[in-house]
């Protein structure tokens, strides 16, 4: 069953041109030129129930704008959106009862109040009966291990504890779909790991569909099974994480330390990234070059040390961001 269906979605923002210096005075009483920016440019995709999707892109790519249209925060300029069968612009209230949002940069909790007070308040916003709400808080506070600080003011909690509370608040009404917009921003590695595990747990055990945005590749690598990369408002890649790794992780980085200085000849599939004294860093495209060919570049006797690693996923994503994905395939 499709949870999200997006067809030819567009969002444009119109602003007025700003003039500087003398130009500013010249245009004081004139109609200012309009600047139309396509934040989201004709994108289509769908998400199946139970999926965990990473929706990533560089700053200003259009990912947050897309999420805001999916949640009913922004009205689309054109195109169709169906989330859980609802049109977010027209059926926002019905939709919001079935989705949850965790924004890393926008806290929903009242910082001067305790987490418990916040949960009771959120419960009243979602019209959850008191008894049911208390049971749900009890259940989630065990899963998220927040019992020790549930009665402390949110302002006194660490960022990691606060994010856990944000997640509990977003789960009180049992949403079917959860939007995470950079939830791990500013967290230390341990807190990040805990949060990632909890998101995975929500997806696997509770069957909640996850749409996740993050600039941290570790987040998406661990949490998501599918990735959509968006840049300049257009979808540049929509594939499973498995395929992404299979197709794009064909480049190996070989670092060798030889006994003597030699000249390594570059050819198709072999590129010397760095050469200093007897140390070489070589990028090898395994689709073009075999391991034998690689080892033939130097004599085994000359070899002092060798290490072979895969291109980090982060570098691959950076390359895709730059629009050079065609070159990589």
């Amino acid at each position, binding site marked *: 069953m499709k949870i999200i269906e997006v067809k030819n979605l567009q969002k444009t*923002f119109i602003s007025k041109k700003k003039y500087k210096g003398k130009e500013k005075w010249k245009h004081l009483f004139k109609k200012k030129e309009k600047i139309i920016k396509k934040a989201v440019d004709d994108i289509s995709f769908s998400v199946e129930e139970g999926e965990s999707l990473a929706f990533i892109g560089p700053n200003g790519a259009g990912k*947050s704008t897309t999420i*805001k249209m999916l*949640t*009913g*925060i*922004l*009205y689309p300029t054109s195109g169709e959106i169906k989330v859980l069968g609802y049109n977010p612009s027209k059926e*926002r*209230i*019905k939709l*919001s*009862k079935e*989705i949850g*949002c965790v*924004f890393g*940069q*926008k*806290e*929903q*909790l*009242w*910082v*001067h*109040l305790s987490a418990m*007070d916040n949960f009771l*308040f959120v419960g*009243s*916003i*979602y*019209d959850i009966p008191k008894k049911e709400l208390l049971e749900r808080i009890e259940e989630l506070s065990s899963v998220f291990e927040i019992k020790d600080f549930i009665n402390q003011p949110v302002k006194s909690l660490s960022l990691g504890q606060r994010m856990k509370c944000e997640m509990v608040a977003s789960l009180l009404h049992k949403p079917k779909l959860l939007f995470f917009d950079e939830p791990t921003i500013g967290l230390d590695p341990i807190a990040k790991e805990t949060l990632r595990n909890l998101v995975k747990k929500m997806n696997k055990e509770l069957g909640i569909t996850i749409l996740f945005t993050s600039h941290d590749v570790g987040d998406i690598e661990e949490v998501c099974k599918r990735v959509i990369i968006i840049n300049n408002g257009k979808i540049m890649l929509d594939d499973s994480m498995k395929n992404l790794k299979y197709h794009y992780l064909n480049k190996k980085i070989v670092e060798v330390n030889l006994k003597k200085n030699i000249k390594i000849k570059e050819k198709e599939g072999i590129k010397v990234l760095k050469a200093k004294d007897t140390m070489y860093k070589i990028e090898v495209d395994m689709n073009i070059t075999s391991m034998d060919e690689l080892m033939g570049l130097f004599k085994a006797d000359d070899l002092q040390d060798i290490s072979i690693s895969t291109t980090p996923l982060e570098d691959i994503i950076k390359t895709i961001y730059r629009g050079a994905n065609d070159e990589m395939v």
Partner: protein
Amino acid sequence: MGVKNNLFMIFRYVKLNLKKQAQYKTSFAMQIVMMILNNAFFLLQWIIVFNITKSIGGYGFKEIVVLFGICAGSYGVAHLFFNGAYKIGDLIYEGKLDVYLTQPKNVLLNVCSSSTSVSAIGDIIYCFIAFIIAGATWWWYLAVIPVLIIGALIYVGVVVCFQTLAFYIKRGNAIADMISSAITQFGAYPPVIFDTVSKVLLYTIIPCGFMYFIPMEYIFLGFNIWWIVGMVAFAIFVDALAFILFKIGLKKYSSGNLISGRL
């Protein structure tokens, strides 16, 4: 069910906001006391005026005390329950409506009731002190409660109508602030001093007439169904207009990416 749940939400907001601010007990009490004193100083000016003349167009000290009491009381109810209405322009300008838009409540009602002014309690207390000073009868106390609620609803409606300008004009809320200030300032003077043009304004865009002048007549002269109908009809008109303008404006809303939290 919807009305009940929305009322529950409004009272829950007030409770949480007061609980949040009551953490600083001295500051909490000071805000209330200072507001009562601030309003009392206004009466001092009128005592000086009425030492010179006995009445202004038939309005004596007693009438002025009641008029300003209603004015402060309506202001208090509006700011106690719907203080968020006065911040809508800033929220629109800074793109901070996102949280409200992801919650299953009417956005405008949610935003308006999300904030509470503690000093508004001082205004409401002052209203009743003013009634005691004016020698109120039991009818006055009975009549003033719906009057304050209707007045607050009109006040909030007018403010929201002008705050929604922020969807179209940067810092459009400055006009709303000006109107809001005009409502409290004009409402504190006896209606007899205004000419026809001013009165047109006072029964339209600065509706002190429906908020203070008619209610005062209603309190002094006794129950009159037509005054009540007039006030309620105007409140419904203004609030419906506010909801419509806000809904239309929301299509223009461009969310922001500023890091923010609820304080």
